[in-house]
């Protein structure tokens, strides 16, 4: 795999942007600028490696923990932040909120609050793409917790029998709220859940964005070449609580620190780029600042934006 310095740099910037986006959310929630709790993806930024092999017109279906993925797909942080604030300038005019951000113009087909339902919806666009020979792929993101929903399996079987260009991305961050994957899933090799349907299924290390990227590149290629669906199981970890304000206590501080110290996807990638000579400490700090500035602007934009008119409550139920 040969990746240009620009591409690698872009990846790092998107990871930094993801983290910069989710970091101030705690304060914004506590200040009630954001009206409800939200789910952060801090620690899971390696997973956005799955976005880079995609084109703008490929489709992604995401869940409750999806800010980083959406930013990588190209969405405007301003309009995302405004949506989370419940402002009329948000992608969905404030009607959706953090759990339901959608921007079809970027192939972001909608975040879903019903865990895992994306795994059946996702087959729609890939079915369409196959029917119309558009050569587009569709990707569904869901957690290891959501992978215990039955329809996930229906979605995989359907994609397999129809050889759809669907990629299932299972983000195994080891916890579903306060429930450990060791308890909830009967075997820890979650790739078996795809293999049950004859779907090529791979375990990848989410702390290594290049490993994620490379495997995704391969399965996207397969999908475009009419070789059918694949499942990627990304081993990853979230540093923050399930949602802002949750009580914690279901894992040790030690475990969290251990991940932070040894498996942080940004730190690992930074080290790698420095090793390659593509990055310096100074440059890194500059990029971090750049990301923070973008998010500061987004917060300012969201904060200053108007709320929707109350009359909007009654519109857009029907076409």
């Amino acid at each position: 795999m040969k990746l240009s310095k620009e591409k690698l740099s872009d990846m790092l910037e998107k990871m930094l942007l993801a983290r910069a986006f989710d970091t101030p959310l705690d304060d914004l929630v506590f200040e009630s600028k954001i009206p409800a709790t939200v789910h952060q993806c801090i620690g899971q930024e390696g997973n956005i490696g799955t976005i880079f092999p995609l084109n703008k017109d490929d489709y992604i279906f995401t869940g409750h923990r999806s800010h980083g993925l959406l930013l990588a797909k190209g969405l405007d942080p301003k309009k995302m932040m405004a949506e989370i604030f419940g402002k009329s300038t948000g992608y969905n005019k404030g009607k959706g909120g953090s759990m339901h951000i959608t921007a079809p113009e970027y192939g972001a087909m909608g975040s879903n609050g019903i865990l895992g339902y994306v795994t059946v919806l996702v087959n729609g666009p890939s079915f369409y793409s196959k029917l119309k020979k558009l050569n587009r792929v569709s990707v569904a993101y869901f957690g290891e917790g959501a992978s215990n929903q039955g329809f996930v399996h229906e979605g995989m079987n359907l994609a397999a029998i129809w050889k759809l260009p669907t990629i299932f991305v299972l983000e195994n961050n080891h916890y579903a709220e306060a429930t450990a994957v060791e308890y909830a899933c009967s075997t820890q090799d979650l790739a078996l859940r795809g293999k049950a349907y004859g779907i090529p299924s791979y375990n990848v290390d989410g702390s290594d964005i290049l490993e994620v990227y490379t495997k995704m590149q391969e399965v996207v290629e397969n999908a475009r070449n009419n070789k059918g669906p694949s499942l990627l199981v990304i081993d990853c970890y979230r540093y923050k609580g399930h949602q802002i304000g949750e009580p914690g206590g279901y894992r040790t501080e030690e475990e969290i620190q251990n991940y932070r110290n040894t498996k942080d996807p940004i730190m690992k990638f930074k080290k790698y780029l420095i090793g390659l000579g593509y990055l310096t400490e100074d440059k890194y700090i500059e990029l971090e600042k750049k990301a923070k500035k973008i998010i500061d602007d987004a917060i300012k934009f969201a904060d200053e934006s108007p709320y929707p008119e109350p009359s909007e409550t009654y519109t857009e139920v029907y076409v």
Partner: protein
Amino acid sequence: MKREITYKEAIAEGLAITMRTDENVVILGEDLVGGVGKGDDSLLDAWGGPFTVTKGFVKEFGLERIFDTPISENAFIGASIGASMIGLRPVVELMYGDFMGVCFDNFLNQAAKQRYMFGGAQKNPITVRTTYGCGWREGAHHSHVNYSLITHIPGWYVVAPSTPYDMKGCLISAIRNDNPVFVFEHRLLYDKKGVVPEGDYELEIGKGDIKKEGKDITVVAIGGTVNMAINVASKLENENISVEVIDPIWLAPLDEELILKSVEKTGNLLVVDEDNPRCSVATDIITLVAEKGLDYIVSKIKRLNCPNTPVPFSPVLEDEYMITEKKIEEAIKSVLK
């Protein structure tokens, strides 16, 4: 002489016409073709749907427009919703309305909410066809009438036609409409005949129909009970009781004006609805009148539903369970007495 075809044939015509006029219409469901996947073309079209509605379709449209599915209602209805977001107009069949239990999120949280939740950034032109109704001696898992559950959910259009003519026109309108539409097809009507034009025609969404004019009582009847109500109305003419039979056809949006106007004229209301009574379409229509037409009522308001029980299997019990012309007649008389 006007052409008569069955309700089932009317469905098939409606489907075929929309498929011919719009290549984005595809149909999906269990056993719609039959014999697929064996690598033997002579086996194709073995069933043409569980009720043979789509018999012959594979010949005209090929396996790229009609899709047999695994028994995975979440998966194939969900995929249809997903495909509807970006340009397809899938018509998906849920074999029995009872099975909505296994795939209800499609109806409760997905198709119905996406447009709103995404601030208008999506639309979902999906049509769900399902069959419903008791009388086939199939027991509690294959006989229920579940249109009230869907009518409850904002975001759906719901239609339950009672004649071949209405069925064809409403189905065509449903498929061409940009909103999710749920089409309830009564199994006992499948072989009933009626006059239906050959060509392409649409019926207005949300528009009900006066099936028989009358002046003493308004009977709002739905789906499978409309013909019964008409028969009762004819019979009661001999007893000098003049019954107006209203078929709302669409349960959502509901033709409120038609119902209110009729009640204004007759002063009495009976709603006949085969669904279970509580939180039903019957209660919905009665509430419409209670809120907006109370002053019109001269004597009584009444609902006639199937009982508040599951559907029993034994013919004796199912007959007792079902709505009959006799029950409608008695209900009319109890309102007017």
